[in-house]
């Protein structure tokens, strides 16, 4: 379970990091690191201001 990041859309704002209930996301400069603790809950994808995240079940 994970999320896919469309790197061509992502504005690396970190909003997704702040809402992740399990702390699975980390923003390093312009890229998002996703740990395998991701539960595919979809909150990050919902709130992404530019729609750069896609949940993978």
């Amino acid at each position, binding site marked *: 379970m994970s999320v896919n990041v469309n790197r061509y859309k992502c*504005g*690396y*704002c*970190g*909003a*997704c*990091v*702040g*809402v*992740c*209930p399990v*702390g699975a*996301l*980390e*923003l*390093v*400069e312009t890229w998002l690191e996703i740990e395998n603790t991701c539960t595919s809950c979809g*909150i990050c*994808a*919902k*709130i*992404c*201001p*530019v*729609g750069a995240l896609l949940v993978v079940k």
Partner: protein
Amino acid sequence: MKSRYDVVVVGAGPAGSITAQTCAEGGMDVLLIEKRQEIGDPVRCAEGVGKDALIKHIQPDTRWIAAEVKGSRIIAPDGTRILMSGDAAMKDVGYTLERKVFDRVLAQRAAMAGAEVMVKTRATGLLRNNGRVAGIKAMYMGDVHEIKADIVIGADGVESKIGRWGGIDTTLKPHEIEACVQFLISNFDPGEYSEFYLGEKYSPGGYAWIFPKGGRSANVGIGVLGSKSGNIRAISLLSKFIETYIPQGRIVEIVVGGVPVTGPIKQTVTDGLMLVGDAARQSDPLTGGGITNAMDAGKMAGEVCIKAREKGDFSVRSLKEYEDKWRSTIGKEMSKSLQVKNLLLKLTDEQLNQLAHSLDGVDVSKMELGKLLTVLIKKNPRLLWGLRTLFK
């Protein structure tokens, strides 16, 4: 970098830099780290700030003031305009900042006060001693270093990890964040007022803004409440807004950001740890403004750090003074704002128009926000019943 400091501050935004500066001026040994290689960039902010709240901390400087604004204009869904210029003493007049420069200047002030600064340095975890927070692990150029400290300051913004690692759950729920996109628009004269467009018409659970940025340009943005984001995105609403209202505008920069609109959270300190600024969710839940709250909190946190060292007590009992202080100052305003925001969220666009029309013939231009709300409550007791005890 040394292996031990009195205070380690994580994040060199306004909250972190002011905390670091205050601690350093108080004679403490301070390390300020920033995970990005450039402080202040990329920006995640609409850059609006009130003059009075700002000058408590720093004298305005043309290097980082992009524009001066004479007041605010609130625009109802049907286009009704409410102009607010603050009181006769021009109290509410403000600025649009150039955060890229402003944030760096604040970090430089911390450095000149004696704080060590490290950029491109990312906190990766906390150190503990007998269960208590005792420093951080930080990565610089691929290597992880252990840095001991009596107090760790989490000034790590909307994406804060420091609080969570320290056992304070700061996770934002979808209804506690505004998902925002902003374009710096050129080839457009925005006038001398900051504009706020309210209603579902512009944004579900948020608002659209136009903040003059100087030289025929403006920060034009839209925030959507996270719980209403998904099928509707801030970026598509903003593109539509600009096509409709500023068709001649040219986009010269894109800014993306999440703004906490939680209101005061229950806990911001634990043994050896304090949270400040967006990491402590101290942005105003109504306006989303967070710069001066962050600076106020940074100053308070720094002062409490100095006292803690004098006492030699870095436990929550000692650091709690910071929490009491911010809660009784900026926290009070945040609570009021949260109540106003929650009520606004329930109003339809028709009801917002009705509120705007109720001010016909009333000169609100010299009123502060509190006074304006008092008038609105008097004229619309039914709609605004829930706010009657807030503003007197």
